[in-house]
C-alpha cells in the first residue's frame, strides 16, 4: 500500500512538471503585472527550484509533519481546503454505490430467475442504455428535467434557504439534492452490475448443487437466495471496492456539471490553475480512498467466502 502511494505521488509530481507552465503562467500574460512581481511570487512559492528538490521537500513535509503544504491560490493548508470536498464526494459516491447495489442485485436476480420474461427484457434495455449513454449528456438531461418539472433542484448540495430549516429539514434538503447526481453517477455501474449479477446467477443456477438442493425439497426461495446468490455474488463483492474507487474518480465530471461541491471540482480548478500542492493533496486523498475501498472489498470477500483464510 505505501509503495503504491509513493509511486502515485512521484508520477503525479513528474507529470505536473512535464506540462509546460506553472501557477504563475496565466499571470504572466497580464500586462499590468511586472516581471519582478512574478519572480518574487515564484521564489515565494518555491517554484524556481528543480522539480526533484520540490518533490523531496514535499515528501519530507508529508512524512514527518503530515503537512501537505499550502494552496497557492487560497493561502490555506491543503488539508483544510480539501476536507469538505472529500466529505461531499464520499457522500455522493456512497449514495451512488448504495443505489447501484440496492437496484442492481435484486433486478439481476429477478432477471436471471425469470429469464426472457418482459421484466428481463426491460431491465436489459435499461442496462444497455445505461452503459452507452454519456454521463455528461445524462447529467444535462436530468438537470433539464429538474428545471422543467421543478421536482428536483438543478444542482448544488443545499437549497438557498437551507440554514433556516430544522435539523431534519436540513438532512432532507441535502438528500433531495443528492438524488439526481447519485442517479447519474450510478447509471453506468448499475447497468454493469445488473448484467453481471444476472449472468453469474444464471451460471450458478445450472450447477449440480442447485439441482441437489431442489431435489432435497428446499423451497425455491431458499435455493435461490440462500445458496445460489451467495455463490453468484462472490465476484461482485470483489468489484465493490473497485466500484467505489471508480465512483470516486468518475464523480468529477458529474460534480462539475451538477455543481456538486466535491473533490472533483476542487481538483479540476487546482489543475487548471496549476496549484501544485492542492493537486498533490487531492490526488493523494483519492488514491488513499481507492486503496481503502479495495481493502474493504478484500475484507468483505473474506467474510462472505469461507474458503478464503484471512
Amino acid at each position, binding site marked *: 500500500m505505501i509503495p503504491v502511494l509513493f509511486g502515485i505521488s512521484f508520477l503525479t509530481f513528474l507529470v505536473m512538471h512535464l*506540462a*509546460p*507552465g506553472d501557477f504563475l*503562467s*496565466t*499571470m*504572466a*500574460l*497580464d*500586462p*499590468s*503585472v*511586472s*516581471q*519582478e*512581481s512574478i519572480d*518574487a511570487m515564484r521564489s515565494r512559492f518555491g517554484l524556481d527550484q528543480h522539480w526533484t528538490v520540490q518533490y523531496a521537500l514535499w515528501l519530507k513535509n508529508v512524512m514527518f509533519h503530515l503537512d501537505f503544504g499550502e*494552496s497557492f*491560490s*487560497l*493561502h*490555506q493548508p491543503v488539508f*483544510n*481546503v480539501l476536507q*469538505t*470536498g472529500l466529505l*461531499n464526494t464520499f457522500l455522493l459516491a456512497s449514495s451512488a454505490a448504495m443505489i447501484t447495489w440496492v437496484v442492481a442485485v435484486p433486478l439481476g436476480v429477478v432477471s436471471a430467475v425469470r429469464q426472457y420474461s418482459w421484466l428481463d427484457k426491460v431491465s436489459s434495455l435499461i442496462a444497455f442504455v445505461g452503459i452507452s449513454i454519456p454521463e455528461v449528456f445524462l447529467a*444535462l438531461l436530468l*438537470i*433539464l428535467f*429538474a*428545471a422543467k418539472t*421543478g*421536482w*428536483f*433542484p*438543478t*444542482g*448544488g*448540495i*443545499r*437549497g*438557498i434557504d437551507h*440554514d433556516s430549516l430544522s435539523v431534519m*429539514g436540513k438532512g*432532507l*434538503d441535502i*438528500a*433531495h*439534492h443528492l*438524488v439526481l447526481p447519485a442517479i447519474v453517477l450510478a447509471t453506468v455501474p448499475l447497468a454493469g452490475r445488473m448484467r453481471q449479477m444476472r449472468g453469474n446467477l444464471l451460471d450458478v443456477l445450472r450447477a449440480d448443487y442447485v439441482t441437489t438442493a431442489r431435489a432435497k425439497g428446499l423451497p425455491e426461495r431458499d435455493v435461490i437466495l440462500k445458496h445460489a446468490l451467495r455463490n453468484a455474488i462472490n465476484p461482485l463483492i470483489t468489484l465493490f471496492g473497485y466500484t467505489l474507487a471508480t465512483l470516486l474518480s468518475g464523480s468529477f465530471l458529474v460534480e*462539475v*456539471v*451538477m*455543481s456538486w*461541491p*466535491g473533490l472533483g*471540482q*476542487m481538483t479540476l480548478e487546482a489543475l487548471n*490553475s496549476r496549484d501544485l500542492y492542492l493537486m498533490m493533496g487531492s490526488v493523494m486523498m483519492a488514491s488513499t480512498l481507492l486503496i481503502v475501498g479495495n481493502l474493504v472489498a478484500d475484507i468483505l470477500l473474506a467474510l462472505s467466502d469461507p474458503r478464503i483464510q484471512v
Partner: protein
Amino acid sequence: MGRFNWLFLVVLACFFGCSGDRSETPPSPVTRQDPNPRPGGALVEEGLVGRYGGRYVSVIRVQPKTFNGMTANESSSSDFTSGPLAESLLKYNYSTQEYEPALAESYEVDSSGTVWRFHFREGLRWSDGAALTVDDFLFSMDLVYDEVLHPSVADLCKLNGQPFRVEKEGKRTLKITVPGTYGGFLDAITSVRIMPRHVLGDAYENGTFSSAYGIDTPPEDLVVCGPWMLSKFKPQERVVLKPNPYYFRFDQDGKRLPYLNELVYLVVPDQNAQLLKFQAGECDEIYFRAEDYAALKDGEKEGDYTVYDLGQEMATNFFWLNQNDRANPESGRPYVDPRKQKWFRDREFRIALAHCVDRQGIVDNVFYGIGEPLFGSIPPVNKKWHNPDVPKYRYDLDEARNILEHAGYIDRNGDGVREDKDGNRISLTLLIQPDNRERQGIASILIDDINKVGIEIKTAAVEFNTIITKLRETYDYDAILLGLTGGIPPSPYTGSNVYKSSGRTHLWNPEQPSPDTRWEAENDRLMDVILSSEDYETARKAFFKIQENLAQYQPAIYIVSRRGLIAVRNKFTGLNPSVMRPWVLWQSYRISHDPEKAAQELATRSG
C-alpha cells in the same frame, strides 16, 4: 413488502414537498432598522428612490480564493474584493466612463501636475463601526510598497520605478506626490484597495498579512468598506453578502443603501448548468453566449425576464505572426525558421492576410450575428480612446491575391500553393486553444479563406499554458489565434507591456532589446508620452497615433468582438446594464426589488 412501499412513498412525498432552490423571496420587511449615525459627508444618489427588501441571485463559474484585496491576483477573487465588498477613493462610472467621487468627496491636482490631494468624506466608517480615515490609506500604501508582499498593484503605483510619496494633511486630506506627471495616476490610485489598519495592522507587523482575510475568515471578522459585507461563505457552493450597516451612500429619501437584503452568488462551474438554473428560476441574472440567444429570447414572457443587448464587448479576438528574428542564446539557432521569418516580416504579406478575414461572415456564423467586426485592439465602444480613422483592410480575396502577386508570392508550379521569391512553399500553422468553441469556429473560417488565396495554413490545437510558454519563452510557433479581455477602466495606461517593444506581452515580438522597426520605436516614444502626460488630450492624440501605426503595419490582425448579452429578472429596478463586467451588479447598491414599479418601467420601455 407492502410496508416498504408505503415508507418509500412517504419519503418520496417529503422530497416533492421540499421547494428546493426556487428564488422565491420570502416576505421581507419594507422598513429596515438603521441605528447607525448618518455620516456628515454622506453621498446622496440624486433622483434614486426604492424599497428595502429582496434578494438578488447571481451565478459564478469559480469560487473566490481569498477575500484579501491586496493579495488577490485573479478575477474570481478580485470580482469580490474590488467589487461588492469595496469602495475606492473614486468610483469608475461604467455609463459615463469617468471617475466620480466615492470615499473622497473631491480631489484636485496642483499646477505642476505632480501633487494630488484627495479630501475624504466626513464620518466614514468601516463595516464594524470603526472610523475610516486617511491613516488607513497610508497603511494600504505601506502594504503596496512592501517588498516582500509585492502586490501586483505596486507596478502601477510607480513612475519610472519610483514610488509615490503619500502624506496626511490636516484631518481628512490625503496628499500624494508623484515623481513626475503620470497620465495613469487615477487608474493606479483607484486600484489600491484600502485596508483597515485597526484589523490588519498586527498581521502586517508579524508577517502574516498574505494569509489574512482568507476564505476561512469568519464573516464578522471580514471588515470592509463597500456596500456589502460577507454574510456566509460555503466553499464551492455560494457566497452570500449582506448590506454594510455603515455604508456612506443614501438615496433621495434618506434611506441608507443598498436596498436589497441579500446578494447571493451561486457557484455553478458548467455554462449549460448555469443556463438551466436561470430557466428554472433559481437565479436572477445570466450572462450568456450567442448560441443561447434564441432560446432565452423566446422565454422572456414566461420566465418574466428581459434580455439586454449590451453592445460590443471590449474583449477582442485576433491572430498574429511570429516576428521574433532573434536567435536562441543557448543553441545559436534563430527561434523562427528564417525563410518563414521573411514572409512574417513582410508588411505586404500581413496586409494580404488582413484582407482574407471575413469578419461579417464570422459574426454571422460563429456568433449568430451577435457581434461586430473589429479592426484594432480598441473597439468603438471605448468612446474615450477609440480612433475611428485608421486604415481598415476589408474582406477582399481578390485584393489579397493581387497584393501577394505583386509582392512576389506566386504559384510557380501550379499546385495551388504560392511560393516566395526563393521558391519556398508558403505554408504555416496557426495555434488555437482546444477548449474554446468560438475560437475554433473563427479559425476554421479564417484558414478556409486564407487557403483559397494560395497560402497553405493549418490549425493545431495547443493547451493554453503551452501557448503562453511559446509566446513568452520558446518562441517556436508561426502564428497564434487568441483573445484578450479588456481591463477596467479600458485605458492605455496599463498597457506598457503590450504596446512597448520592450514589453513582456508585446505579442508578436516581446522583450526586444531595442525597437526593431521605425514604427515600433515611434510607438515606444508615444507610450512614454501617454504615461507622462498631464492631460487627457495629449494622451489621446498619442494613443491615436499608436493605433494608426498598428493598423498600418498589422502586426496583429483583429477579427471580431461579440456583443454582450445578459438576461435579468423583471422584478428589479435601478438596473443600469453595461457591457463591462459585472454588467448589472457594478451598481448593486442601486438595485431595488420592486415588481410593480419594474413592470411599469417595462411597459413604458416597450410601449
